């Protein structure tokens, strides 16, 4: 489990990027917390810098959109999912449990991305 920040430091509509390998993005979507791989599965943009609307995050580079609940893209140009991770709040601090951190490359590697989100 990786501590992220205090709950009050991630207000609704905001996101934060963890410099893990691969990097992980944590979002507060209208009060629900989600964590996914930060690197877009299309090319190499950082999804934490994207546009958050409801449960969808739009990539800042070519506007692929991902469902934060499943990591699946909802439109082109992304075709592969990003991994999703579990988020917990403990004593007011947000934590992320990164799914199978080993073996992932974070560059949108197809096998790593597919495995995580299927779980």
């Amino acid at each position, binding site marked *: 489990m990786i501590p992220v920040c205090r709950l009050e430091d991630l207000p609704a509509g905001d996101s934060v990027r963890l410099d893990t390998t691969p990097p992980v993005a944590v979002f507060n979507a209208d009060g629900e917390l989600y964590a996914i791989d930060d690197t877009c599965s299309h*090319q190499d943009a950082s999804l934490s*810098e*994207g546009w958050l609307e409801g449960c969808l995050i*739009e990539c*800042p*580079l*070519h*506007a692929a959109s991902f469902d934060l609940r499943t990591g699946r893209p909802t439109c*082109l*140009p992304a075709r592969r999912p990003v991994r999703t991770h579990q988020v917990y709040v403990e004593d007011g601090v947000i934590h992320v449990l990164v799914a199978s951190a080993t073996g992932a490359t974070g560059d949108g590697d197809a096998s790593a991305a597919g495995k995580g989100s299927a779980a």
Partner: protein
Amino acid sequence: MRAVIVVGASLAGLYAARELRAQGFDGRLVVIGAEPHPPYDRPPLSKSFLTGTADEDRLALADEEETAELAAEWLLGTRVRALDARGRTVVLDDGRTVTGDGVVIATGAAARRLPGPPLAGVHTVRTLDDARALRADLTRGPQRVVVIGGGFIGAETASSCAVLGHDVTVVEAAPLPLAAQLGPQMASVCAGLHARGGVALLTGVGVAGLRGAAGRSVTAVELADGRLLPADVVVVGIGAIPNTQWLAGSPLAVDDGILCDDGCVTTLPQVVAVGDVARVGGARAEHWTSATEQPRAAVRNLLAGHTVESAHSLPYFWSDQYGSRIQFAGHRTSGDIARIVEGSSADPGGDPTAGARGGGLLAVYERAGRTTAALAIDCARPFMKARRGLAADRAAELAGV
């Protein structure tokens, strides 16, 4: 409509094929492309593909499953050489013909070349084959690389060559590269990125010619002021010309691109044009996003038989150079004033040797108190907000008139 022909099997052609199926066209779909490769993505050719961080399989635009779902007949490695007077039949290079009742033209553009006999070591960067050849030359140990042209593709290629450890010089005829696109103030900020990447930038001087014996390798680039720049590899990045030669003699109007209305419809209602080859509503864009957005309206209008939807979206492009990401959106015209609203121009990209990016910057362009465009260097999140604002303004403006 029972059969549609898509001419050009790259980004815009593939998106047109997708739109045709998505919008319910279930007839015969023939996609014809001059290159032997299935549709691939060009932007990485000057970036991650050149530096070797992305392989060819990462360039593919459609996977097998999607290709199968499109249920198209692919004629790859096949150039179209003419369109008949009724705009329904295309003639292939080998004389065969294909007839449909709708045609989507997506033939893109070709890299402009320098006059003179071909010399080994001289490259353009437009196609996968171009990039493969350049990559092969760059893997033969350290080289002296001269990039002719400081536009986006020239700058990206120079950056990639520098990353690979080559000795790189960029030659730009204008006093400042990219000034026409970005305006002088922001163009000079971008020009500063070359120095940061260890690349020499020579501006305000044209190229007189290339040195090297005919049929042999290039040895130097001769500048208009008489200077000689020794070179083992030369990259010519002086723009692209829309691929319209094959339309000579057709009824379509052509003037630096195929003339179309706001909905990508040509002078013939059953022929639409999309992507780099199309001059839509008076403007031709050479951007990835236009090539992916125009097909939606173009296909709708093609299937409707006349223009029911405009393809006017907000122009947007990005470029990756020297570890920085440049993003631009909107309609800048000369005289618009650029104002930096986030970060500073002092060091927008940070120090690449330290592996760190600077804080980035966001600039907005203004004219008569209105925002016309936005430019960001490593400032994706604020840029997205600005871009959305511009798109909303544009939509309101279009709805209002």
